[in-house]
């Protein structure tokens, strides 16, 4: 007997809307909304596992989850993980941007005078690829959280970060200088599951497509 299809559900910023779109696709999610500390939930023909958004590709690549939902930012940062990207779910829209301090030209000055900009980010590969593709050199500083702090205390000249409403930037007197890419939530599948459980995955994908376009 085949076990239920396992779906990696991202906790964090995408959690609420992911549950909404799963509801719309006819997947029971009440248990996940209950604030339970459990990480695994049975829901009809599916098993839902909750993981950090940045761990979704890890679980799906290894087949520990057959399919999953995560942000395009995560997929771009981990583009070497071979998973199928099947659907743009449209929600969780945000922008990956280069930002600098309001009223300061530190980014420009560094580029002109030092030939290199110091960029703090949680997305080192996206940042590296972006500056490489635009022919500029940077010194990359990888931080794990509150990247907005870096330019305020002189750790970096600017940051590459994900912006949804722009409020965090504003509160820290930072502003968008360049937009790198638009990101939304994506539905991904394991390479083997995509072949061996084709009917189930196609069915879930088409229900999710419907739900996300409503």
């Amino acid at each position, binding site marked *: 007997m085949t076990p239920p299809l396992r779906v990696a559900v991202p906790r964090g910023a995408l959690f609420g809307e992911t549950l909404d779109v799963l509801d719309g696709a006819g997947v029971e999610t009440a248990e996940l909304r209950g604030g339970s500390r459990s990480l695994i939930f049975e829901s009809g023909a599916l098993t839902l596992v909750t993981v950090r958004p940045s761990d979704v590709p890890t679980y799906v690549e290894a087949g520990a989850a057959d399919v999953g939902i995560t942000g395009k930012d995560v997929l771009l940062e981990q583009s070497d993980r071979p998973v199928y990207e099947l*659907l743009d779910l449209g929600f969780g829209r945000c922008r990956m941007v280069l930002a600098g301090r309001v009223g300061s030209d530190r980014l420009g000055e560094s580029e002109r005078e030092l030939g290199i900009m110091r960029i703090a980010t949680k997305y080192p590969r996206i940042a590296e690829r972006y500056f490489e593709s635009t022919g500029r050199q940077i010194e990359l500083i990888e931080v794990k959280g509150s990247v907005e702090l870096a330019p305020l205390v002189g750790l970096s000249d600017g940051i590459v970060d994900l912006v949804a409403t722009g409020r965090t930037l504003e509160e820290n007197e930072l502003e968008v200088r360049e937009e790198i890419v638009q990101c939304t939530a994506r539905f991904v599948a394991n390479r083997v599951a995509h072949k061996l459980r084709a009917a189930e995955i196609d069915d879930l994908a088409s229900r999710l497509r419907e739900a996300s376009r409503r």
Partner: protein
Amino acid sequence: MIHPIPPGTRDVLPEEMRELRKLQAALLGVFEGRGYGEVSTPALEYDEVLARGGGRGDHAAYRFFDESGELLALRSEMTVPIARLVATRYAQADPPHRFCYLAGAYRAVSPQRGEMREFLQAGVELIGAPAAEGTVEVIEVLEAALDAAGLGSAVIGLGDADLFRDLLEELGLGVEAVDASLAQLTARDLVGLEQELEGAGVADEQVADCLALSQLRGGPEVLERAQAQGSAAAGRAAGRLTALADSLGSRTGGHRVQFDFGLTRDLTYYNGPILEVYDPALGRVLGGGGRYDGLMKRFGIDRSAAGFALNLERVHVAQIEERRRKEGGE
């Protein structure tokens, strides 16, 4: 005192070695029994020879100079070395040539991903047999090898390497747009493929057809559905796969075969039928192969050729997993 080894390499201890040897013997038994003689080639080759395999510079991850300044490389797979061997030593001999191998291959790994820098491959190459029969024979050998390995649930995904280039050209895309779209398909990014096609001015309906075709996989019923799509390229690919299915069906039944119109291979030397091997007990692909007449041309001989390689360690893991599942646990 602990003396480390590089990440992505490993020691094999007697208990596992006994099992691996058993698996190797079972596979070799199948290969030799069907006339595929085992060959061994050097792990080190001239970089220039391996580079004929093409690809995006990933034909060799490890390159170095020897004492006289020649650029050497560790092989990343066995098909290119065997193409080299056939072109060099069997150019005048009467085809077909049947070879098999159990050999280490070397690839770059991403850190902390459980990928192996050095891994064992078991496979066959059939060179110089008529194309259609050759492909069928290679699939038969693969089916027998999976049986011998005890992978009762393994599936062979069968696709066509030429389909999407053909289809995109039919849609009137320029060279650059074709390559960009194929890159998205190979990266398995359907959202990216859709954006690429829309950007190239393909009509919505045809974009939808393309995406649907890339998701068309399953039993013989998908062959008819591809025919029904109306595009000439899809029709031709379906025709080729139907012919293959018919001759497979009349010989082995082809019960392990799944047709997959969206299948792509990372290696660039394939043309015509391509294949991948999956097992439900493992989230990673067990192996793959296909037809590579073009590669033989790059070595200066005009022969049709086909083969496959299995990742031996993954086959072993799948074997253990399948056994566990049969015995009751998950």
